[in-house]
């Protein structure tokens, strides 16, 4: 992998697959420390996902599956219960996120998870690795 950061002016010096990345932004003017290090593989993949539109498709697929299996209704029930306890006016989005995250992450059906992982890995294979 090239030592130059991916977000540099041109990508002609980069090998093969990374040339196809379409980001040609000059570095942002504010002096953040993060600008100095190279983007992680995760960040690169994330960008490719978004650019190709695959992230949106994956999200839609996941959302659909979670609705079908009743996961969403479960989460909404949790939210309603919490809201009744804390009071309608005092609830924040943050509260609700914290309420449903643990159960939410744990209760995704295995089949749904497997389907999504399969598609993501297929994308990874075609995109980069």
């Amino acid at each position, binding site marked *: 992998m090239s030592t130059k950061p991916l977000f540099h002016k041109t990508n002609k010096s980069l090998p093969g697959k990374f040339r196809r990345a379409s980001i040609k932004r000059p570095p942002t003017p504010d002096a953040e420390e993060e600008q100095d290090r190279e983007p992680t593989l995760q960040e690169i993949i994330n960008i490719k996902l978004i650019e190709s539109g695959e992230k949106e498709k994956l999200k839609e697929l*996941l959302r659909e599956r*979670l609705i079908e299996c009743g996961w969403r209704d479960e989460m909404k029930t949790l939210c309603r219960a919490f809201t009744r306890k804390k009071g*309608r006016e005092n609830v924040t989005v943050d509260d609700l996120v914290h309420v*449903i995250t643990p159960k939410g992450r744990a209760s995704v059906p295995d089949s749904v998870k497997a389907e999504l992982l399969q598609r993501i890995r297929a994308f990874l294979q075609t995109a980069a690795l």
Partner: protein
Amino acid sequence: NMFFVMLVIFPMSIVVCVQLALHVFGDLLDSIIVDVASECHRIARLGLERKLDEEEEELRLSAQARARIADPSNNVEANGKYVVDIFGQTHPPVANEIFDCMNCGRSIMAGRFAPHLEKCMGKGRKARLKATRSSTAAQNRYSRGSPVSTYSPYSSTASINRLSNGNPRVATGECSNGTVEEP
């Protein structure tokens, strides 16, 4: 760390791939969690919970009503007072709510309002003819020979005609353009 455990069994590329996939999945799931939380927050703060409950109740009741119609054991034939509608209610053959006639002010039973109005407005009009604005219009209609003996230039004309034909439609003195919609 799982990473190293997996590394023993699978080659690096597969391990990295799986890790990445899990990370992406986690991202998507977190994003959807935020969406759900945000929507529930909105519903909570806008007080839509009540409305949703009420709508649900409505749907339930109408499903019930529909089921009652479909049920052959219900007595659907007219049987005097025992006709049952889709909500399971019965209604008397003559509407028995009582209210005040807006013309003469008397207390009238709803089912008897139409015939009352025939007499009520018919008699009243004789006295009111002189006070009407367009007496020419009244005379024109009068000379055309309608079945009702007296006319007013206002809508009561058309309505009275219909009343005397047995149409149960109620007419008020309020319509001023002389038109009443056909039922």
